[in-house]
């Protein structure tokens, strides 16, 4: 008898998964397709860009600087063996603009901003602020979710661009100022090999996708949290775990598409 119950449980899990996928999809569409009351929406959006984007700036810039410096150091040590130290700028710029910039800033974004979004919205659900908003005929999706969602999509590419620029600067500091690579070779080899459309724009496309997915996961987990203290904790954990996995998985798919000449 217990075996049948276990099999039943398996089916239940599958159904549950499908239900979550469906709810999150409907939730996303409801968030995107709102009546665009722009004049009243803008102040809310700007406030959220401040919380999601501006406050994440310091951690993004600092991590970018350190990652660029480490890339400079490691790259220098390896390239020295081949006598190709002049290619250091190219190494740092290509790896940062194509991969590290979008991916690491998305991971940091999920940890810094995504978890905060989930906890905030989750607490609103737990203390029934969302329900009371509905009572006052204020649409919570419009008032709470949509500004945070759009703020995430707008902030993520900006953060990623700043990350890349700062990281290249970090590589420059270590490579040129400290280890003594020629500055002219550093920049000219970089410029000769980095293509604006193929490397930089593709990196920005990636970061827009990551921003979309991370914020979507964060606001969904917050909105549909189990309204208890431990429920909020679980939702926050899920946000960070799912966002990181989605970022890394999507990064592989997007890279495969872009290298496939898409």
């Amino acid at each position, binding site marked *: 008898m217990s075996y049948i119950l276990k099999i039943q449980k398996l089916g239940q899990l599958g159904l549950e998964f499908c239900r979550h996928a469906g709810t999150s999809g409907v939730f996303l569409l409801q968030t995107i397709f709102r009546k665009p009351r722009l004049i009243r929406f803008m*102040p809310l959006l*700007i*406030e959220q*860009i*401040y919380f999601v*984007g*501006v406050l994440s*700036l310091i951690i993004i810039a600092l991590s970018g600087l350190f990652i660029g410096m480490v890339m400079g150091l490691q790259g220098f040590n390896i390239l020295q063996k081949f006598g190709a130290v002049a290619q250091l700028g190219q190494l740092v*710029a290509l790896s940062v*603009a194509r991969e590290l910039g979008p991916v690491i800033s998305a991971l940091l974004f999920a940890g810094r901003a995504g978890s905060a979004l989930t906890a905030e919205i989750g607490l609103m659900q737990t203390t029934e602020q969302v329900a009371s908003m509905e009572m006052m005929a204020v649409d919570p999706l419009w008032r709470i979710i949509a500004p945070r969602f759009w703020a995430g999509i707008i*902030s993520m*590419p*900006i*953060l990623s*661009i*700043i990350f*890349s*620029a*700062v990281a*290249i600067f970090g590589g420059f500091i270590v490579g040129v100022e400290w280890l003594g690579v020629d500055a002219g070779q550093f*920049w000219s080899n*970089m*410029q*000769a090999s*980095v*293509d*604006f*459309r193929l*490397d*930089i724009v593709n990196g920005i496309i990636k970061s827009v996708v990551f921003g979309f997915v991370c914020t979507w996961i964060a606001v969904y987990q917050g909105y549909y949290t189990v309204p208890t203290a431990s429920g909020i904790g679980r939702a926050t954990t899920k946000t960070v775990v799912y966002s990181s996995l989605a970022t890394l998985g999507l990064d592989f798919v997007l890279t495969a598409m872009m290298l496939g000449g898409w």
Partner: protein
Amino acid sequence: MISKRFYEVLVGLFMIAGMLALFVLAFKVSNFSQYGNDNSFHVTAAFDNVGDLKVRAPVTVAGVRVGEVYKIDLDPKTFRANVTLLIDKNESALPDDTSAKILTAGLIGANYISLLPGYAENMLKEGSVITETQPALILENVIGQFIYHLDDKKKK
């Protein structure tokens, strides 16, 4: 409660920082393809073998970059590689009988095309064909020929 103005100013600064970073990436780090449609022209050259030549590889005259490889495709009849070059108009005009060579930068470097200007009166223009070409040097073939000749000498 922080005033609304404060948010607006900081978000504005954030956006400006993003724009500046994009400018740095665009102009300091990457290169826009300098060879657009209005300041350059297309020339084709047929090679027996292009080796490892890639699209966007440099085209040089006397070592100075004057353009880039625009397209590489196979001629279905002659089985030669048709390479379309994009050459800057602003560089000095090249004579009609210019010849093209595929060279390698350094021992393990990438392939590029070197143009050797001729002495003709007519100049290359949009759609011209370079007839005088020299294929890429394939290292394996060279080594193969060398070993073959080594055997010949031993027999004598």
